[in-house]
């Protein structure tokens, strides 16, 4: 009888306690959900701001208000730039400062609620913000460093070529003043004739490198008829490479740029032949309707990471810049064609597909008249 009475009196108490626990659980769920939403929105906002901390921080501050974080203050330094927003002196704050060689981050938040259980939620949001800021900074520093590094390499390459051309001109000026007799004169002209193809390839390369990325859409280009097999043959001779060129095909393109495309491929093979002396370079050209396809292949070893060969600044050579093949593909695409590379049974094979194109108006007129 007593037990029954006890159960009757406890019944209400159990129900009330259960309800209280449920309410607390629901409240905590609401708080964590809110925190997760704020976190997700912060990640999205960072991406929308294009990982620019200056734009991102005010937005982060607005978002964090929804999670009862009253304010954000910071003192961030990277490169020559400083972003700073001083914080309050006597309020409830969570802060952290990290100093690394390339940057320093001081970050703090002002919280509204003093309650202990909220602290973990504040910490999670604070850590997310800190990580996002650090990631943005590292990304910025890496991009800047990479650009500087690549720029200095590009400059070194151009300098090498330009110095040689300048040295050539100095030699030329000295020699012109001292040609002497007919026999020397004849020899001088002979030397110039021998030098001309190499010099032309070098200056084309310098120009193409400097012009890369600076072309505007719709730029008028001087197109002329280029006999593809004969251009390949000339380059093979220039590099003293063994190999045969078969087939026929000509395209109407900018000749200097076409030289750059083929030179970059054949030069690559020539460099490879330094460690593989037996290496030969063959090519076949085919003209079908409106397209001309040139296949250039070597008889050497396969190339590792061949899928990355057209990536700018990707190189397998210690002293390489990794711009040559990227440049070649870029030019071919500008011509409206395509270029691929693959390791095949016979060697490394480049395939260039080009649209035959039309002769420029003036040339067409001359031909018809």
């Amino acid at each position, binding site marked *: 009888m007593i037990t029954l009475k006890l159960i009757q009196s406890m019944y209400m108490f159990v129900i009330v306690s259960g309800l209280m626990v449920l309410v607390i659980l629901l409240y905590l769920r609401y708080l964590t959900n809110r925190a997760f939403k704020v976190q997700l929105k912060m990640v999205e906002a960072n991406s929308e701001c294009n990982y620019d901390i200056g734009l991102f921080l005010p937005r982060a501050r607005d978002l964090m208000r929804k999670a009862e974080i009253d304010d954000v203050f910071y003192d961030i330094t990277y490169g020559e730039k400083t972003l700073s927003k001083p914080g309050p002196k006597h309020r409830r704050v969570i802060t952290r400062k990290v100093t690394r060689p390339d940057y320093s981050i001081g970050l703090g938040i002002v919280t509204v609620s003093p309650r202990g259980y909220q602290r973990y939620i504040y910490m999670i949001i604070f850590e997310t913000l800190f990580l996002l800021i650090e990631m943005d900074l590292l990304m910025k520093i890496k991009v800047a460093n990479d650009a500087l590094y690549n720029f200095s390499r590009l400059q070194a390459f151009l300098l090498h070529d330009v110095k040689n051309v*300048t*040295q050539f001109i*100095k030699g030329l000026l000295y020699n012109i003043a001292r040609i002497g007799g007919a026999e020397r004169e004849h020899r001088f002209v002979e030397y110039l004739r021998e030098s*001309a193809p190499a010099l032309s390839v*070098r200056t084309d390369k310098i120009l193409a490198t400097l012009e890369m990325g600076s072309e505007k859409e719709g730029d008028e280009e001087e197109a002329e008829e280029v006999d593809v097999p004969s251009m390949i043959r000339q380059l093979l001779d220039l590099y003293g490479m063994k190999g045969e060129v078969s087939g026929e095909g000509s395209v109407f393109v900018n000749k200097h740029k076409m030289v750059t495309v083929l030179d970059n491929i054949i030069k690559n093979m020539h460099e490879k032949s330094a460690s593989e002396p037996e290496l030969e370079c063959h090519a076949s050209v085919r003209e079908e309707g409106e397209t001309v396809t040139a296949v250039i292949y070597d008889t050497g070893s396969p190339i590792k990471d061949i899928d990355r060969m057209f990536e700018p600044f990707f190189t397998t050579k210690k002293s390489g810049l990794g711009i040559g093949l990227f440049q070649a593909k870029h030019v071919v695409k500008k011509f409206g064609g395509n270029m691929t590379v693959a390791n095949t049974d016979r060697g490394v094979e480049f395939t260039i597909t080009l649209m035959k194109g039309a002769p420029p108006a003036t040339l067409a007129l001359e031909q018809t008249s």
Partner: protein
Amino acid sequence: METILLTEDDVALRAQLRFALEERFEVLEAGDVRKAINLLGKHDVTLAVLDLGLPPHENTPDEGLRLLHYILENFGIKVIILTGQKTESAALEAIKSGAFDYLVKPASIEQVLFSIDRAILFRDTERKLEEQGLAKITFGIEVGKGLQPAREEAEKNIILKVLKDTNFNVYKSAKLLGVKRESVYYFIKKFGFRREDIDDNA
């Protein structure tokens, strides 16, 4: 007539240099290290003009420095560097290795010719001095480390030179150096000289 080995990978520039030099010298041309070594083996080259940025690494001085070391170790002729590699480390390494001159492109042809004439003058004078029993020995030391290492380095170089000149004849070497034969044996052991090494370098 002097025979100059011109190692330069730029065909156009090489032709101009050749034209400028061949009035006074016999000129051999090489575009890479392999060709240069081949020519050195076949001809009696008396002087070398060398570019450092050679294929397949035109943008680093590595190939040129490799050839420089090879020439100096095996032929002991004067080498003039004519290069676009303006890095301090490349110049330092070339001069430390024993290059006679270091010209940075673009250099005037007069400068190149002047340097060649000076190299010939130095070589001839050194030869004359050698005939008189005066040998010029160059060696590098770190000044901060005191006199002992310098003394040892000088000793080592002199003994090595005399051993080379006498074709590793200890008796003749001792006589030339004015020391006992035992002392020569002592130095050979101390510096770890081996006949094969000396013969290889000769």
